[in-house]
């Protein structure tokens, strides 16, 4: 009696599992015209915003999957022979180039981007930029005051390397994240190789920790665990807007990042993908996105949202991303010794 109940229970579970197992293939066949599949590197709220607006405008439903940039690029490369997504949305061009080099991205030149600055457009036509952000310093003013009294807030990268700040700084680990690598490269490029390394050697012992995720410094500074953190200004601004006591400082000679969008080669809905790229670059979407993300829009017709930091007012270095890529192994190897 009991035995049959147990067997029946297990059978019931297995039978109930069958639809789940069949799900994948069924739903692939069902792929309809009114659908778009987006791999999204921009954050949860921003992904949803794009999806809702696009649906409103075109009637096309956007399904998005949000994850870290490296992971999504890796997925697109792995799925190259049977693409599961239409769009890769957000993240720096370097990641999109990684996918393009493996032949996983389509080419598309959006007519909407005609007026965009040249640096926002890929010479090989794989990607188009839709926002700009830059590296900055976040300060938890409350903790800073408690710790350092009337010491003035750091204004430059040099100010940040003040020995008084020992143990109060967070910087993302360049070996774990490409955005943190941007910080290290910025120092090397603006000061030159030798002076750059002596700056980093001075700064590294002051850093309390090197978290792996780019989202960590704003959070650790926002919640008052540390006084100072290096992060993207838009990420810091988002925390400030949420009510965390974060003050934003953009030092001179910083580096910027252009966030880009691209279409996946052979994706299930290629026409919708083109419409979506046009939409992302449009005045309407750019206005809404800039307001939500506090990044700087690239569509020249869009005004800068309140609270955002104007990148044109920022002193940007001329960042050589090819050099940065070529030096990666050497820089990271030397970095290990500096951090030790």
């Amino acid at each position: 009696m009991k035995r049959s109940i147990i067997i029946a229970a297990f059978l019931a579970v297995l039978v109930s599992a069958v639809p789940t197992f069949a799900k994948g293939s069924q739903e692939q066949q069902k792929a309809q015209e009114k659908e778009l599949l987006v791999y999204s590197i921009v954050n949860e709220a921003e992904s949803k915003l794009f999806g809702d607006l696009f649906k409103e405008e075109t009637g096309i439903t956007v399904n998005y999957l949000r994850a870290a940039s490296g992971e999504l690029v890796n997925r697109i490369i792995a799925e190259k022979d049977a693409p599961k997504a239409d769009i890769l949305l957000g993240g720096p061009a370097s990641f999109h180039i990684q996918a393009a080099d493996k032949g996983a991205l389509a080419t598309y030149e959006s007519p909407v981007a005609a007026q965009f600055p040249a640096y926002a457009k890929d010479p090989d036509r794989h990607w188009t930029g839709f926002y700009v952000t830059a590296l900055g310093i976040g300060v938890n003013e409350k903790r800073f005051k408690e710790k350092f009294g009337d010491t003035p807030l750091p204004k430059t990268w040099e100010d940040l390397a003040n020995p008084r700040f020992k143990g109060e700084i967070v910087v993302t680990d360049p070996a774990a994240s490409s955005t943190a690598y941007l910080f290290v490269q910025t120092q090397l490029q603006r000061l030159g190789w030798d002076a750059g390394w002596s700056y980093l050697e001075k700064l590294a012992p002051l850093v309390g920790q090197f978290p792996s995720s780019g989202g960590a410094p704003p959070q650790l500074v926002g919640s008052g665990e540390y006084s100072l953190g290096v992060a993207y200004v838009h990420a810091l601004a988002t925390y400030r807007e949420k009510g965390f006591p974060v003050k934003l400082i953009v030092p001179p000679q910083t580096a910027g990042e252009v966030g880009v969008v691209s279409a996946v080669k052979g994706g299930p809905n290629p026409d919708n993908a083109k419409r979506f790229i046009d939409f992302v670059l449009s005045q309407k979407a750019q206005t809404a996105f800039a307001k939500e993300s506090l990044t700087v829009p690239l569509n020249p017709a869009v005004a800068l949202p309140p609270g955002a930091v104007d990148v044109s007012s920022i002193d940007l270095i001329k960042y050589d991303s090819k050099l940065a890529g070529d030096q990666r192994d050497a820089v990271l190897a030397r970095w290990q010794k500096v951090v030790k």
Partner: protein
Amino acid sequence: MRLSRALRDPFLVVAYLVLVAFLGLFVVYPLARAALTPRPSDWAKLLSSPRWIAAMEHTLAMTVLSTVTATAMGYAYAYGVTKGRVPGARLFSLVPFLYLVSPPFVGGLAFTLLLGRKGIVTHGLLGLDVSIYGWGGLWLAQTLSFFPISFIICRSALANLGGALETAARGMGAGRFRVFRTVSLPLTAPAIAQAALFCALSVMSDFGNPMLIGGRYRVLATEVYTQLSGWADAGMSAAAGLILLAPALVVFALQRAATGAGERYATVGSRGRGIGRDDDVSPPARLALAAFCGIVAVFVLAQFAVIAYGALTRIWSVDGTFTLAHLGAASKYGREIKDSLAFPALAASLCAAASLASAFLVQRCRAPLAPVIDLATILPAAIPHTLVGLAFAISFNGKPLDLAGSGAILVVAMAVSYLPFGYRAVMAALAQVKPSIDDAAAALGASRSRALFDVILPIVRGAVAAAFVFAFIVGTGTMSAVIFLVSFKTPLASVTILNLAEMGSWSDAAALASILCVLAFAGLAAVRLLAGRRFFQAAFR
């Protein structure tokens, strides 16, 4: 000839073939594919760079430290609620399960809010400005995170002891501590070794705590995630995960050597079971155990209180105004929540069935290839769950089996990830059952499968239920096993929690985590009602 007898039973033959196919397809094949992913240059870099060598040393040191403390803590806690008969033992037994469901990141944040530089305990109560970030904080976090595993294993062993041998020892004039040292402790040694094995494997492969609390102290498991998420470098990621196999196999072999094959420890089926006395511990010892359990429970509950507080206030850690807005925002993720309960439930059933089948076939039937099945079943414990996910993503994308984007791949990945625990739990329970019981069933004419269902299963049902509960609870909150496998059609709440946390919406993340946690326990209560109280009680006893 036990072998031929087992093979004459058609049910067991089918079960055997299904099991072998399952292990081959979902354990051996994906791992082999993952093993081929790193380029030779990745291995060279891994074995020569000081960063990686430091990460290996840290992993080793942290594993040894945390294993000792987590195992001891779990044993002491289990001793308290069983032999120690501390007041409120049933409630105390629930607390470690609560800890298992705490989703990564939110749990870690709660930990920093309690013990961080601005922590409620460290800064608020003690007025300290200390940093938990580093090996010390990580050690504490790992001990707390994995003591529940040791607790679950040790508790069932302690509860199964009966008490006849202790009673006899006391009767011969031995003192309470001497009885503990010479009778209870040696009899539960296999469980302790087992608990140590699982704590070691879990500490080695955990990446959430090191990422949040490790500070500058880096370990290998974090690298598996960050090399892929931060640099899209699947080769380095897989290499970092695979290198963990070596120490894992050593730990596995050590545990084997320490335990040996064990009729020595069999207590179920011994005569005199159930003749126990209720004064195994002296009143002062009982008080100490109660205080110990109390402190642990208070800390675990405090962490949940902090999460609930975060979910119900405007800005976590900044603005304490009460609000329901975050719960409202979180409840919009209905599909994510549904999937986060349904998939682990399926995975847990699969895991429990496979654990029972595997343990019975390996230990009782001397089935062909038994050592290989044993190793394949335990193998997933030795590698970070992130690597299990990565291996699945690499292996089941396109030919010969395309599962990418389906719910099945999530269910199977979870089942495989938690299989070692369920399997070992059932194995441990079986080890306590004397083979003479099987022989008695056979002598009375029962087939092997009848003996399994009518004799063995009722005795080991606690372990099978524990396998289910463990897989379900851990699966609900997991991120590591699934992060590379979620798709458009199969979103999971744990991944959404991470996304919300990453954009600074900590309160929404806490709200979603709270909803998930409450529903997971409601789900367990429902299963308990359906499956019957007796079947289930054993897991929570």
